[in-house]
């Protein structure tokens, strides 16, 4: 299995409006909109670059150290 990056994006599903901005800006094509309801990154693809968090209009994304 490929090694996961030390940091990753975490989406607050309560705040996310499923606009898809994060999907659009993610350079790794890691972000997805699940069931038209919230965004969620594919863990194996997310490198924790923070592009999505920077663009999210609802500030629903935080880049955190993987636990």
């Amino acid at each position, binding site marked *: 299995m490929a090694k996961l990056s030390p940091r990753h994006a975490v989406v607050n599903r309560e*705040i996310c*409006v499923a*606009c*898809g901005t994060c999907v659009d800006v993610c350079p790794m094509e890691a972000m997805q909109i699940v069931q*038209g309801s919230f965004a969620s990154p594919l863990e194996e693809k997310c490198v924790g670059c923070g592009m999505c968090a920077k663009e*999210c209009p*609802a500030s629903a994304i935080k880049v955190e150290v993987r636990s």
Partner: protein
Amino acid sequence: MKQKRHWYHYLWIWSIIYFSLGFVNILFAWLGLISFCLPLIFAIVGGNKLFCNRYCDRGQFLRVMGSQVGLSLRREMPDWLKGKAFRYGFMIFFFAMFFNIIYVSWLVGSEIQSLQDVVTVLWSLQLPWNWTYSAGVTPWVAQFAFGLYSLMLTSEVIAIVAMLIYKPRSWCVFCPMGTLTQTICKAKFKE
């Protein structure tokens, strides 16, 4: 690292075409119904927000103007603007306005009220638009066009102001259509 560009990234052009066409002839405002029907079809039939995620001309327009052209100040949005109360409240208000347009068009069609050929921005600023109205058209058809164009223009103005102050696609946080389609999708997948 650069994101892949797709054809739908150029849909912002439709926003410009739509408002220009309505300026030339108000009857083109009817095309705005596409922006009302498509997201609902995606949400109800497909259970997704693909319209918002890809094909919304306004979303693409705000992205281009805010990010690519760099017009956005990118301030943090206040919590109340992102909150559920404002989002759902604004959605109800917006759709009440939409149904009011249908009601007024019905009144005009029933000859209870006469045609008002003005475009109203932000529910108060009235712009005389009579040079765009081709006479000979059924009055209720024209009335609906004036109403819909007013609503589209009003929401575009709010969206642009939000884009300028906050992050580019801030309008999408409280966009009535976005809120409605997310609500539909959530309801569809709630077991």
